[in-house]
């Protein structure tokens, strides 16, 4: 008996940032380097829309890390800035300032359910570094149904 592993049937994918695909600013969105490298055929990067497309709905989570540790600031990173953004977005205080502290949530991920996944900055405070830490930023997707 031969068993051939079929990676193409995976309901999961992790997606990373290569650094070669950027999303131009378009209010309310800010400039962002796109998640463009899915680990399985569940998702395919669309170079026109800068989203990772899936043929069926997927539940997606994205965590983004800036590549800087020298200035203070805040980031809001979201799939959807208009639909209850503070619930589905991630907000990350950039470390190093030694100030702030008014509000924080431990779960620093943004979430989405759709067939086209494009997580992007909504807010970047003045002086904060937008460039990603490609090793720490991650998006993962689960193909779901009801």
């Amino acid at each position, binding site marked *: *008996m*031969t*068993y*051939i592993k*079929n990676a*193409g*049937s*995976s*309901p999961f994918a992790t997606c990373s940032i290569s650094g070669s695909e950027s999303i131009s600013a378009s209010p309310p969105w800010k400039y962002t380097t796109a998640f463009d490298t899915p680990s399985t055929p*569940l998702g395919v990067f669309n170079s026109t829309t800068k989203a990772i497309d899936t*043929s*069926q*709905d997927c*539940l997606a989570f994205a965590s983004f890390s800036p590549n800087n540790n020298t200035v*203070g600031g*805040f*980031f*809001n990173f979201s799939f959807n*800035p208009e*639909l*209850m*953004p*503070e*619930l*589905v*977005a991630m*907000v990350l*205080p950039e*470390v*190093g*300032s*030694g*100030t*702030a*502290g*008014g*509000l*924080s*949530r*431990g*779960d620093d991920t943004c*979430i989405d*359910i*759709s067939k086209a996944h494009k997580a992007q900055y*909504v*807010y970047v*405070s003045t002086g904060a570094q937008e460039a990603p830490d490609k090793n720490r930023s991650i998006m993962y997707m*689960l*193909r*779901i*149904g*009801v």
Partner: protein
Amino acid sequence: MSYFLDTSVKSLKMGVNIYYNATSSLNNGSTVSFNTSGSGAPLNYQPTYNFATGGSGQLAFNGSKFTLPNASQSIFMFKCALVWYGESLNSAGEYSYSWYDVTDTNNIMRVGSIASITSGLNYSEGRAGLVVADEMAVYTTNTANQELELRLVSSNNSYASLTAVDYTGTPQVYYNRARCLVYKLN
């Protein structure tokens, strides 16, 4: 023997509900409520994937207590992330919270993982203790008729400088809100 390779993309048959507007008194053991729409309804976000609640054989929620159905073939995962909200900009501290099995009021048990949330005051990076990386209280169960509540566990400074477990004013774009994700895996 023949073996046919199934090449179809697999899918998790599941629904997701998001509960929000968290409130709690700031004491050890206090129950956290989610006053969603005043009726326990989840966020109307991608409603195709909301699962029904409150009916026969379904998960029930009364604003603070989840009750599993009596004959469910589903598995439920409860994941909640509260926030640290202190009115003082440089408020500092920590508190923790977890799910509790309150089915038997004479034998209430903490279940799942304990989440610990600190303020956003980031002068403590590099220190360790009282912090977990994924600061969510998580519990997975399919126990029939089990009743669950989210409760505060403890605080390192008796909740001093903490105003609430969620922000209820008009949020700024860099604000977070507490959220409770409930997954139903069929």
